[in-house]
């Protein structure tokens, strides 16, 4: 995951140079491209490895609710993705000659909400696509259209924060992020049992 995000940052760095104009919001876009695409590689493996090893049935057989299995998977993917994002932000600040430390708290909040949103829906789609032969393709096809509101909100909010604007300016985007996080978690709660059944 980290290697992939590093590669994305390097490619954009070579393409655009290291002194981008923050007003264009391009920096935020590059950052989230690295987050989402790298996160997707981790998401794809969360259920497919269980299926391949034949341990998923062992998990389902345990006396815990399917929601617990979902939450455990989500927390695992979320933590790995967050670690990747912290490393990516550090590399990003070096490569793009910028400091994120003044914006660390609001940026952290946006990254937390954005990551929660795309990992929640990604975990569900990872479970759905795990049995498919072309699981990686299927995961991408299912994941990207649905996660668009979360990604757009995250990019917009990150762009505003990196421009040095106040947290109040990003409240509308944060509200959208919180709303989609809740919707995705609720949908996961309601559907995961049925996804695990077959």
């Amino acid at each position, binding site marked *: 995951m980290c290697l992939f995000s590093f590669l994305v940052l390097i490619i954009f760095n070579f393409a655009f140079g290291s002194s981008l104009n923050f007003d264009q919001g391009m920096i935020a876009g590059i950052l989230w491209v690295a987050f989402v695409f790298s996160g997707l590689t981790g998401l794809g493996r969360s259920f497919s490895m269980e299926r391949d090893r*034949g341990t998923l049935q062992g998990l389902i*057989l*345990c006396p815990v609710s399917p929601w617990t299995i979902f939450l455990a998977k989500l927390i695992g993917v979320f933590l790995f993705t967050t670690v990747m994002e912290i490393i990516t932000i550090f590399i990003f600040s070096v490569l793009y000659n910028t400091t994120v430390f003044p914006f660390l708290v609001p940026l952290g909040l946006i990254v937390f909400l954005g990551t929660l949103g795309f990992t929640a829906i990604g975990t569900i789609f990872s479970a759905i696509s795990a049995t498919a032969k072309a699981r990686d393709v299927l995961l991408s096809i299912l994941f990207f259209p649905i996660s668009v509101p979360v990604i757009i909100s995250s990019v917009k909010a990150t762009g505003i924060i990196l421009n040095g604007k106040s947290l109040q300016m990003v409240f509308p985007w944060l509200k959208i992020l919180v709303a989609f996080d809740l919707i995705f978690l609720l949908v996961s709660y309601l559907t995961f049992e049925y996804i695990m059944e077959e």
Partner: protein
Amino acid sequence: MNSEHHIEARGLNKKFGYKTALRNIDLFLKEGDSLALFGPNGAGKSTLIQVLCSLLQPTSGSVRIAGYEARHDREALHQIIGLIAHQTFLYPHLTAYENLKFYGSMYGVARLDVRITEVLNLVGLSDCRNDTVQNFSRGMQQRLSIGRAILHDPMILFLDEPFTGLDQQGREDFIKLILQFRDQGKTVIMASHDLQQGIELCDRAAILKAGKIVYLQDVAHISKNDFRRIYTQQIGVNVLPL
């Protein structure tokens, strides 16, 4: 428990797309019963076991085990059943101890470390406690899979081809374990191709053919050769004398 039957399956049908795996299965077992399921490949033995364990939902029909509805009380049901399936459900990069520790924690097993030591002794893997499962032979993995299935001391044991990969010693140890299980009044359902082993270990036998139970009888008083003849008649394929 609300019902006199420990396991009640009524009108079970299971379809995978256009393929019908189970056809109108009715099965009733009392506590302490042991049932051997026989049938050729594709007869529906594994599917029936998976439906009874609520790993698969039936297309129609219902399963009730120890008073729990398989569809609605899955967590409670899973607490009282153990399954040995084709797959071992083991994590290859974890050690034998870590695998049992993981599953034991999921089942909320009390005094887990003591129980793990007990189970590893039972399945003859105490010397390999700290070896990773990926270095185990198929037989050793099967032994550990047996340990995983009995770790939480289930009331009902489902066995799907449980002797796969076991060496002679492993088979004998496992047979002892099944008999011990039966002596404790626990229920055993075993799918097998081995007619002799099946009728020696179980007091009832069922023959499945194309998803239907075509024979279900008490076999305690049936000789092995008589049962072989019944099997041949039902399935239409000759089998070697027992």
